[in-house]
Structures are given as C-alpha cells and as structure tokens.
C-alpha cells in the first residue's frame, strides 16, 4: 500500500520532485499534486521568451498529462490549498474534499512584490509571474502601449525586453545605480545597460518609483526626484516574496521563507518544503536550479536513501536574445580574492573570474557565455585552477591544452 504524499504547488519544483521520485521510489508513494494555476506544470523560466514571441505558450508545458498519469500522480490543478492540518495530516482544498497525507511537500513558489506606493492598485498595474500575466502583457504590447517596468533585475529586464520585442514602448526604472546589482559588478552592469538600450529600451537608474498617478487607471509614474513618466501600464518586477501563508497558518517555522533543514524538512516532521517558498540556511533561492537540487535530495530522502542538501552555488542566466549574461558565485570578489577581467566593449564582451584560495569562486560573463557551464562546474567543484589560470578566461579548450602542455 502506497503512502499518500501530497505536493502543494504545481510548478517546476513539484514536477521535478515527481520525476526524481519516479527514479528512486517509484510506487512507494501515492502522489497527489495540488496546483492553483489552471494548467499543468509549465516552464516558468520560458515565460519571458513567450513574451518576446520566441517561444509559443503551448511549448511551455513541462510534461504531458500522460506522463503524470503513468506515474500514478493525481494532479488537481486550478485548486487552491487553503489549510494544512498538521495534527490530522490533512490538506484542505477550497471547494473540495480534504486530502490526507503521511508526507507533505510544500512547493508553493513565490509571488511578485507589489510596491507599496500610491496607485499601486490602479488598473494597468501588472506583475510578471505566470502565464496569465504574460497573456495580459502581450495584449498591452500588441496595442503599442507605453509601459514602465519597475525593477532592473533579471525579471524586470526580461519583461522589458519581451514587451519591447512585442511592440511596447518600454521604460525600465531601477532603484539601484546599476542593473542586476545582485548578480553583476559595475562594468558588467554598464555594458548590459548599453546592450539593452540597443534593443530600444529606455533605462533609468537610481530611479525610485514614488507613486502612480491616474484616475483609477495608470497615467503617469512619478519618481522620487519628481520626474514623471507617462505610461499606459506599469509592470512590477521588483522582486518576489515566497508564498508562506499556508505554512505560517499551519504553525510551521517561517522567516522569509518556510524554514527547512538539510533534508528539506520543515519544523514539522514529515512536512517538507522546496523551491522558491523554502528558506534553507537563511537563503531563499529565486532560481530553478536550486529547486532541482532540492528536489533530488528530497526525493532520495523520501526514498529512504541518504544525502543532504547543503545549499546551491547559484548561477544566473539572463535570457534576453543577443544579450547573454551569466553570473555565478562570488561575482564581486573581496579583499581575499583576485579578479581576472577580460573586456571587449565593441564586441559586447565583459568577463570576470574571481579566484580565492586557488579556486574559482565566482564569474560574471556578459556577451561571451560559451564557457559559463564550465566555470560553474569549476566553482562548484572547487578544483584548483592554478595551472589553467592563464588560459581559463579564453575557454575550456585552451585550458585543456594548458594542462596538457
């Protein structure tokens, strides 16, 4: 008799967990997936490509219905879990029967932050999180509307690019003095800015959005310095917040995210969390790669095998066509590290590798990201790089020759 395992959330983390469980514990659990979004799990990462018209919406689907069926997974999408009864080991679902579990996994993801400013609730203020958002934004762009994107991080840039590509007149405003400040150093961010500007996007840095004017509908955006931007729509892409309400209400330990240990277990035995909603060793990851690693660890644990999640070295890839950006590890460097920099602004290339204790500890790449995965591997494996230090910047093949020489 299979144990009932309930996964709340039907995103990429959930799908990966099911896949991993299929590898290590097929048949051990009777899995039910409960998702609020009205469709099968899809690749959220590609939403910006959909917005940019580079990927069709139907291509997003991670797995067909048959795949889930073959694994004996009950998928309830369009259903919102409303409560966890830890004592009774049940999940309550809006308008439906509760589902009992012996193991529960929270994969509730996160939601976009809406700035707490006057006018934030006007019509024409959007976010960029799910496929519904994308459909709305595409409508805006098709009408050649003036859109202000608030937020110069990964999400904001991808939204701005997608909107511009789809036909909107886009201004991107960013609070900080450089784009993607959590992933890029100043020269990389400056190069990125010029490259994005070449795509027809206006960028305002150190721009603090103060309020939105209009008559229940967006008309202008006012910045803290008084500058006003006329706009038909605003897209908030200024960060995400883990979806923790369910966990919090259930009395689980929650900081910014749902606190988990190295086995992805929350403060309640048998209840786990992973993906963007989880907080591991104080870190909430906003990227898919850690969620996948967590899914693998959790699946092994649920299968009774060993292993622990020790955190991820995160790598960021910006998916803006023709503007390749990659960042991983300690991208800024410190007094204890050394940086190697290659820049070729005409070619739109900037590369920085950070070395500490004889190992590669961080990398920032703009333009030429061909060796991004190799750098990531070097960062993660912490293998000594002394012998390839001189060649590393110029790619793996040259470095391999340096070793052979």
């Amino acid at each position, binding site marked *: 008799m299979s144990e009932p395992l309930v996964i709340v959330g039907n995103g990429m983390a959930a799908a990966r967990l099911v896949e991993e469980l299929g590898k290590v514990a097929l048949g051990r659990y009777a899995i039910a997936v409960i998702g609020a979004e009205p469709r099968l799990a899809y690749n959220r990462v590609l939403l910006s490509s959909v917005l940019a018209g580079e990927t069709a919406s139907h291509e997003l689907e991670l797995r067909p219905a048959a795949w889930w069926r073959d694994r004996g997974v009950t998928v309830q999408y369009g259903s919102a879990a409303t409560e966890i009864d830890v004592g009774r080991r049940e999940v309550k679902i809006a308008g439906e029967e509760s589902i009992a579990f012996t193991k529960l996994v929270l994969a509730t993801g996160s939601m976009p932050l809406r700035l707490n400013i006057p006018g934030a609730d006007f019509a024409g203020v959007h976010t960029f999180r799910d496929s519904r958002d994308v459909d709305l934004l595409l409508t805006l762009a098709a009408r050649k509307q003036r859109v202000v994107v608030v937020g110069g991080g990964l999400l904001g840039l991808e939204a701005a690019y997608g909107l511009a590509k789809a036909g909107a007149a886009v201004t991107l405003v960013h609070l900080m003095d450089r784009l993607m400040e959590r992933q890029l150093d100043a020269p990389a961010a400056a190069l990125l800015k010029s490259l994005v500007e070449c795509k027809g996007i206006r960028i305002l840095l150190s721009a603090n959005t103060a309020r939105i004017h209009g008559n229940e509908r967006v008309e202008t955006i006012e910045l803290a310095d008084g500058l006003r931007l006329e706009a038909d729509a605003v897209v908030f892409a200024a960060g995400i917040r883990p979806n923790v309400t369910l966990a919090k209400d259930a009395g689980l330990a929650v900081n910014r995210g749902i606190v988990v240990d190295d086995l992805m277990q929350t403060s309640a035995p048998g209840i786990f969390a992973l993906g963007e909603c989880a907080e591991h060793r104080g870190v909430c990851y906003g990227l898919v790669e850690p969620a996948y690693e967590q899914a693998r660890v959790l699946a092994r644990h649920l299968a009774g095998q060993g292993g622990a999640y020790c955190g991820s070295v995160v790598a960021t890839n910006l998916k803006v066509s023709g503007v390749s950006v990659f960042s991983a590890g300690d991208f800024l460097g410190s007094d204890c590290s050394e940086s190697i920099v*290659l820049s070729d602004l005409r070619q739109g290339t900037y590369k920085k590798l950070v070395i500490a204790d004889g190992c590669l500890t961080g990398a920032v790449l703009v333009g030429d990201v061909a060796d991004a995965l190799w750098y990531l591997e070097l960062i993660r494996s912490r293998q000594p790089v002394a012998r390839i230090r001189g060649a590393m910047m110029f790619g793996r093949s040259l470095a391999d020759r340096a070793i052979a020489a």
Partner: protein
Amino acid sequence: MTAVVHTSTIRTTCPYCGVGCGVLATPDRHGDATIAGDPQHPANFGRLCSKGSALGETLSLNGRLLHPMIRCKGSLERVAWSDALDHVAHRLNHIVARDGPNAVAFYLSGQLLTEDYYVANKLMKGFIGSANVDTNSRLCMSSSVAGHRRAFGADTVPGCYEDLDQADLLVMVGSNAAWCHPVLFQRMLANKQKRAARIIVIDPRRTDTAGEADLFLGLTPGTDTALFCGLLVHLVDSGALDQDYIAQHTSGFDEALARARSIAGGVPATALATGLSERDVTAFFQMFRDTPRVVTLFSQGVNQSAQGTDKVNAILNCHLATGRIGKLGASPFSLTGQPNAMGGREVGGLANQLAAHMGFTPPEIDRVRRFWKAPHIAVHEGLKAVQMFEAIGRGEIKALWVMGTNPAVSLPHADVVREALRKLELFVVSENVLANDTVDSGVHVLLPALAWGEKSGTVTNSERRISRQRSFLPAPGEARPDWWILCEVAKRLGFAAGFDFTSAADIFREHAALSAFENDGRRDFDLGALKSLSDAAFDELAPVQWPAREGAGPTARFFAGGNFFTADKRARFVAPEAPALRTETTASRPLRLNTGRVRDQWHTMTRSGLSPRLSAHLPEPFVEIHPDDAAKYGIVDDSFARVTTDYGQCILKVIVSERQRRGMLFAPIHWSATNASNARVGALIAPFTDPFSGQPENKATPAAIAPCEYVFRGFALSRRELDLPPRLWWTRVAASGGCGYLFADNGDLRHWPAWLQAIAGDDLVEYRDFGGGIYRAASFAGDRIETCVFVGPAHDGGDWEVVRSLFAADRLSDEQRRILLSGKSIEGAVSTGPVVCACFGVGRTSICDAIGAGAHTPAEIGAKLKAGTNCGSCIPELKRLIAQAGEGEAGSKETRFASAAN
C-alpha cells in the same frame, strides 16, 4: 645622378658583407622590389644568404632622411640643398683657415661606393690637405691591410674564391663564416661534400662555423700568433718548407723563425701557449703540413686585436714558408666584412694610405699630387679611427663629416665617442636615416644620401672583384649620391676644377686612371684597362677582378711566382711580438667580453633591422655565457644580466651555452640606443688598438657579469613607433605592418592601462589579471590591431610569435579577436616558435615537429619545410636541433635562443 625608374630586372650587388653577391632586383610600382640571387655572378652563382634574401623588406622609406637639415636653435630644420652645402663649405673653410687642415676629418664607411670614397679621399687628402680620412673599415680589416703591406709591400689579397672550391684544407681563423659570410661558407661546404676538403676552425667560441669543422681548436683568446708560430716551427722541423720559394722570393725568414721558436718552439709549447691539447695541436700541424692545397681564411677574430697585424703576419709566414700562396687552392685569404671595404682600401680611404694603394713616401705623394693637380696634398698619415675620435674628444679636431656609418655605436668606448661628438664645432652626417645614435649625438648638418637600390657605382669584394651596384629605385625626396654632395662642397671650397664630375662613371674613370698612373706593374692595384670605359660600358660593366692592367690579360692570383710589391720584390717574413692581450682580467673584471655579429643582422641594424624576417632569428640583444660561469655568477638562461667593463655597462638577455668558452662572454654588436634601452655594446669595449693597423681590440675587454632581475616581461606591437614608459628594458624588433618591442619591467603593472589608454582609441580589448601579474590589451582600428601590449611574469609574457603573426594580419576574425589576449594560437594556427630559417620563416617548433616525425637530416627537414634550402645558413642550427632531439632531455641544456615568450 638622377636615378631611373626601372620596371625590369636589374643586376646589382648586395650591400652587406664582403662576399659581394650578385643580386637581381625587380622593382614594382610601389617602391618595393623582388630580390633574387644573380646566377651569373661569380661570387654567389645565384645563392643569397638570409640577409640578402630579405633585402626587399628593407626598402621602405619609413624613417628615411629625405631633405637636408640644419640645426637651428637646438632642433633640426629642413633647409634647401644650396643652404646646407653653403653652410658646410663655409664652416669648413673657416675652421681650416683658423686651425689648419688637421682640425677637420672625414669618417667614411665600407658601405660607400668606390666613387663616393674616391671623391671624399681626394677632397680631404689632395685639396683640404689633411689625411684625417678614416673609415669604419678600420674596425673591420685594417690589421689585414697592415699585415698584407708588411709582408707583400701592398694590400694584396693573393687568392680568389675559386681557391675555396679547390682547396683540400680550409683553415678558418677567427671567422664565423657560417653567419658572417654565409654564401662563401656554403661554397666551402660544397667543396667538403664534393671533394672531401677538410675544415679546421680556430676560434675561442664554438660557433656554427665550428659545427662543420673536422677539427675545432677552441684556443685561448689572443693566442693565434702562438699557434701559427708553432706551426711555422713544425713546418721547419718536419721539412715541409718550400726552400726555393723562401730563397727566391722572401726575406727575413731566419728572424721570423727564431721569434717563432721563442714563442712556441714545438707542440708542447704551442699547446701550453694556446690552451689547446697537444693532440689537437699535432693534428692541426700535420693536416696543414700534409695538405699543399690549403687556404687559411681569417677575419675579425684575427683583425680585431691589439696584435691583429702580427696575427695576420704569423699566418702569412706559414703560407710564404710553404710557397702556398697565389696557387690554385692554396693561399692566405682575408675575409672582409663590408660590401666595399676593399673599394675603400683601393681609393686609399684610410688615414695611413694616400690613394690607389700608394702611401706617404715622397715619390708617392708627388705622383698623386701631380695626378690630382692637388693644391694642398697631405704629406703624412692622418689619425686612425680610434685616435681620430680621441682627438675630437680633446678638441683638436673641430669639424667632422661622417658618411654612411654610425660611430657612436660601433667604435670602442662608444659612450665617450658619443660625448666627443657633442664637442664638435661642425658635425656633418650624410645618412639614409633620420635618427641613429650618431645623428642623435648633436649633428649640426644632416645630408640625405642615396641608399642601396638608389645609388649607382661600384664595390669590390674580398677576391678583388669589382661589381656594379645599380639603381633600381628612384631617388626619394631630395636624397643625392654621396659623391655629388662631396663635389658640391668641394666646388664651394674653391676646388671646382678637381670636382667637376658629372657621373659615377666619370669618377670611376679617374680612379682607374690614377691606379694606372705611372704604375708599370709596380703597384698591385691597377685598373688601367678600365680607365677609358664609356658611360654605357660602365653601366654594363660585368664583375671584373683586378688587377686589370691595360693591355694585359686577367690575373686571378698573386705571388705564386713571387713579384711582391716591395722594393726588392721579395716578401717579408715578419717576426711577431709574443702574444698577449692588452688588458688583464682582475677580481672585479674576471671575464673577457668577446663581440661579434649574429646571422641575420648587419652592423647597427639601420637596414637589416627593418626586416621582420631578419628580426625573428635573435630578436633581443644578448650575452652568451658558459654554464659553469653562469652558475658561478648566478646567471640563469633566458633571464637578464648586467655586463660591466671599465668603460660602460649593458643589460642583456642571457643565453647560457656550452658553445661559449669558460671565462668568456659574447655579445653581438648590433644594438644601439635607437633600438634598445641598454645594449650599446660598443660602450663596453676597451679602446686599445694595434700599433700598426690602429684596429681596436674588440674581442677581449675585461668584464664582470651580474644577474639583473625583472619582474615582468612583455612585448608591444604598434603601427607607429611607441614611446614606452620610462625605466623599461626594451628592444625594438621589426614586425610586419609596424614596430615591435620586447621589454622587461620592474614597474607597477597598474601603470600600463593608463599608458595604453593615452595612446589608444576607444576600441580596446583588455585582459587584466593583476594578481597573476598580467596585463594584456589591444586597441583596434576596424578589424585590425592598432597597438597591443602584453605584460606578464617572466614565464608568462604571452607568445610573441603568435601575436606578431596576428598583428601582421589586415583583419582578425571575431574568434581570433576573442582569443588574441590569451597570447596563444587557436587551433590551426599553431605557434611555429622562434624563426630558425629566416628565408622561409620556418620556426623552431615546426622544425622540431618535423624531426620528431622522422626527419633526421637537414635535407629531410628541407624537403618537408623548405627550411635550409635557400641560403643554408640555418643548416648548422638544424643539425643542432637534430642532435638535441637525439639527446633528449640532455639536449635541453643546450642553447636556447632569447625570446620574450615561451
């Protein structure tokens, strides 16, 4: 005087060494020319060495002096020819009137054509009235001149090149012919291959020439006289003398033999005196004794000595004693260094000659005076080069006119020479280049002379063969023939009648006439048969050997039957002084510095330094040291060392090599302040000279060596000349499409970005690894590198060869650009390593790969890569590489050539 623009192939003569190879030049419409050996020329039969082959790369007008210039308020300014000539004449006149004719001097060059030389010599010795006419040939072969004159009564080279083909034994003394006379050396090797001639090399240094020797005698420097005295004694004691020849055609034998016995009275004494093994000495003596057809070739190793003349005579004594002189395959043979050293000797362009192989005896003075109708003929010898510049330093000579040479680099004690030049009241230089160390020593008047390819006249090679240098390029700017410049000044000095020449042919006819004037066979040098050449005949003159006496047939050799040019027609045996170097080593100067040439450079590099191909062989100024000495003084191969003598110091790249003798250093002479920061080797050399020839002892200055550390190495390449940051060690290297610089630095790496950004445009690629000690950057104009600089720790400067080839390209692909600053080649463009074969640009890596793939002989390498199949001067190096490959790891201790990378 106006050069004609030719479009067809022109026969001319190479401007480098004294072999005097015929060259076929085919100019194009862009001022360049295709260069090939002249198959019909009897010196080379179509062969050219690496330097000659690269002549086409040296014709650029970059850096050329194109207009007369006069120093006005500190800086040189362009003036009209008439103003420059008026100025020179006026100032000369004034100084001669005030201080007498001996207050002025000409310093000439073996690069000048005979006609230029003739006019200069005539003007100074016949009309201004001083014999202060000397030449850079003084530094080159004046000891041979003096030795010839003492033994033969004239400066006669008795043999000819055919003797090198026909000898059974070739003894090379102080000659690295493999590098310095490559085409002749190839003839000797051909003789060895075809006729099994044997080669003996006598040299303190195991040169590439020695690599071909059947017997190598690495004697103690300065002991050549002892070796040949020992040989003379051996010839006597073993009954090998030509008694008849001695009796009929010579005098002074007994005194010479007695002296020889006292210096080296047998094999043990010779071995002791020369530092050679008795076995080697015996082998040499026996080979010489038993081989009638023996040619002894000698060059700078003999000449550049404070006893050079005695060394020459010690050699000549052995040939006289055996009658092996002027016979087919048997003769002493002086190899001259310069293209027209012989022509200079013929006109008398040396301070101890008057003209046309005549000296300063009263009848000779009278004869020349009458011929020239000379108003103020010089009646005694003038000052020889070293003494001339000392007199300038003392303020006794107040006016100097330098033509076509760079004494601020090439003279001994060169820093003092440079300072002396600044004291001159009138300092005139006739030049091709806008800047060299001499020009930069405060020249007052700079006169643009025609260069090779533009000028027209004659040169004489080592076998007395006169060949035409013909123009195949138009005169650039306002450049003029040297003879024209001299004649114009002479006219302004009031000597119009003696200098109304209208062509080189005109001058040649007078020169030939003087040689024949009241000659009647009493003087060796006689061009009587050529004194009436028409202009057309002069233009078409085929290479011709002298003597060319009027009404007599050709004479290829002298003295087989005696008839020396002494009063009694007998040769003189000369009793040489006991060999001793002029200087002593001391605790603070424990080594001796030898100097010389490298294979692919010429003199102070003003021409050969323009060729990227030639710059590739040994791009940096270096000092070579034996491994034991290197260990003793803490010197490491491929590092830097400071070489100090009592006269100056240099910082040079180090080559540790067993080819160098213990206790000796070797440094090449080519680099100057114009093309390197710390490599004026002339400044290190002691100014001691031979009492007869005045030739300085350039090869044995006591010296010290100490390591010199540089944290960073690097190189830069630019389309324009660069002002490198101060305090750098650097050397300039020709590069295709611009200038290259190799450097070493102890400064802060962080200065480089600012330095580059100040000279570069916006399109900059940069690689910074300051923690790893690396900065590399390139600025681009379009897809072409404009300037690039690579700096790194000694082991990681970037691959100069790779970057140099990318710099040469007109456009870089995106992939090449992406990988450029790695300093490494991308797949398919594998680095070929430092160039070994300059003719075909074949690098060491390629050659080693070919060896690794089974090529076991130079011929097999040649078949694969063409290396060594043109001039052949890299064949010794190919053999070394083959041998090294055989030795495996042991071979890695062998010479590694200096280069910035690897």
